[in-house]
């Protein structure tokens, strides 16, 4: 899904997924073992891949989802507001062998009264939406890290942006006088409740409500607006890294120089790479963990066992019974970074970085998955590793 076109992405992001030609619409609550999800658009590419694998698994689960904006999503699950629009799901191979994850998911119809949200996803923590969100019996779970990127059209000559430039571009608009981004009609962002926008805002020091430029409803709208801008040099937008990875033929990412840095860096170690090395080691600061919310029991465990299973996969934790596929590999393939592959951590949406050592590191697995040459021995179990190391996802990790 790394080289699809912007048009295909727009379809896959849901812009054209509900068509009148669908004669028979499946009832969402008739799907096999459904988990109803309300999610940010940054996670849609991952859900399409994971959704297919889950539907084809020996113990199938159907992810039934629709995208929204992070703050509204979190408000919805905590307040118990049912989903009131038709949802989407991925067909199993038995249902549609020709379907691929860069195609639009299928739609299903919701019953009168809507459907409850089982699992919500946000790009930001609840506190980033301001005061007033009562979690109640809903708990927050952190998932894989997602980079965010400033993007320009491929025809743009720009290659980097500093935090100071971004402050003036987005906070002052035309008056910021930072060439070539001096025309607000070519500054493309998201609504103020978008987790993507709030994440960028926290990093550059411009609260979401203070941004200049165009507010576009969906990530796919930003991709289309940037890639088709009539003034390529003046155009700039913000997207999630997974969305950028899926549309690299239509967009160019800018290296980003954070406050206090000496140079600008890409999420990857090179402009064309996929290794996310600069995110993992702290050189690239536009990132945050995926945030998931679910109802829990008194011990903090999800009350819905299917939600617990999906969450475990999204957090790269052990899953029993074996799903028959590699969830962490899918996470990596879709541009996310499992927590176990991170070497730095941060508190809050844009807090300072600190060194981080995961309980069960998987950096070598990650590097191998993205085509690198891991500096660890391959293994089948802990017995094949040196003292102090553990066999994690096929590699001896955790040694000094």
């Amino acid at each position: 899904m790394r080289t699809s076109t912007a048009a295909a992405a727009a379809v896959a992001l849901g812009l054209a997924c509900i068509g009148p030609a669908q004669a028979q619409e499946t009832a969402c609550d008739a799907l096999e073992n459904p988990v109803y999800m309300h999610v940010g658009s940054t996670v849609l590419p991952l859900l399409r891949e994971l959704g297919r694998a889950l539907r084809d698994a020996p113990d199938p689960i159907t992810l039934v989802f629709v995208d929204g904006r992070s703050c509204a999503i979190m408000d919805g699950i905590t307040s118990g507001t049912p989903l009131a629009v038709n949802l989407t799901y991925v067909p199993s191979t038995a249902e549609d062998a020709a379907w691929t994850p860069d195609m639009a998911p299928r739609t299903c119809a919701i019953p009168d009264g809507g459907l409850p949200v089982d699992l919500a996803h946000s790009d930001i923590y609840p506190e980033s939406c301001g005061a007033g969100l009562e979690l109640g019996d809903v708990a927050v779970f952190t998932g894989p890290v997602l980079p965010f990127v400033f993007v320009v059209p491929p025809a743009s000559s720009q290659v980097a942006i500093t935090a100071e430039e971004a402050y003036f571009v987005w906070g002052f608009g035309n008056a910021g006088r930072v060439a070539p981004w001096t025309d607000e009609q070519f500054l493309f962002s998201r609504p103020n409740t978008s987790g993507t926008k709030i994440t960028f805002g926290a990093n550059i020091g411009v609260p979401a409500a203070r941004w200049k430029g165009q507010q576009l409803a969906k990530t796919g709208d930003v991709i289309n607006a940037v890639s088709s801008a009539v003034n390529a040099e003046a155009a700039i937008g913000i997207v999630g890294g997974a969305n950028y990875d899926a549309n690299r033929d239509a967009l160019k990412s800018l290296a980003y120089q954070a406050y206090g840095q000496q140079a600008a860096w890409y999420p990857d170690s090179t402009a064309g790479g996929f290794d996310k090395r600069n995110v993992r080691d702290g050189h690239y600061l536009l990132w945050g963990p995926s945030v998931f919310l679910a109802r829990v029991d008194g011990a903090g465990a999800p009350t819905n066992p299917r939600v617990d299973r999906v969450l475990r996969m999204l957090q790269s934790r052990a899953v029993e019974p074996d799903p028959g596929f590699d969830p962490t590999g899918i996470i990596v393939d879709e541009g996310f970074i499992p927590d176990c592959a991170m070497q730095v951590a941060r508190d809050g949406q844009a807090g300072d970085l600190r060194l981080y050592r995961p309980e069960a590191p998987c950096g070598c697995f990650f590097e191998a998955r993205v085509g690198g040459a891991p500096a660890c021995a391959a293994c089948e179990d802990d017995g094949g590793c040196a003292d102090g190391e553990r066999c994690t996802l096929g590699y001896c990790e955790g040694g000094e």
Partner: protein
Amino acid sequence: MRWLTLLLAAGSFACEGETSVTPDAAAPDMGVAAAECFADPTTHVEIINACTDATSVSKTPVTPLLREDGTLPPLP
């Protein structure tokens, strides 16, 4: 001394009128030069400026509204 060098390097681009390179003159560079990076980082500033062989981009932006002392003005 290294800390002072870092602060000067981080802040040097921020002085109005001091820059003469346009933003599109940014050029890819191969990593941070050894004299400007931290080989064994522990703090936030050291981590984000740690030595690496990853591709970096050196940029001297023109930001006319930046204050003379290098600080940002409040948002309008």
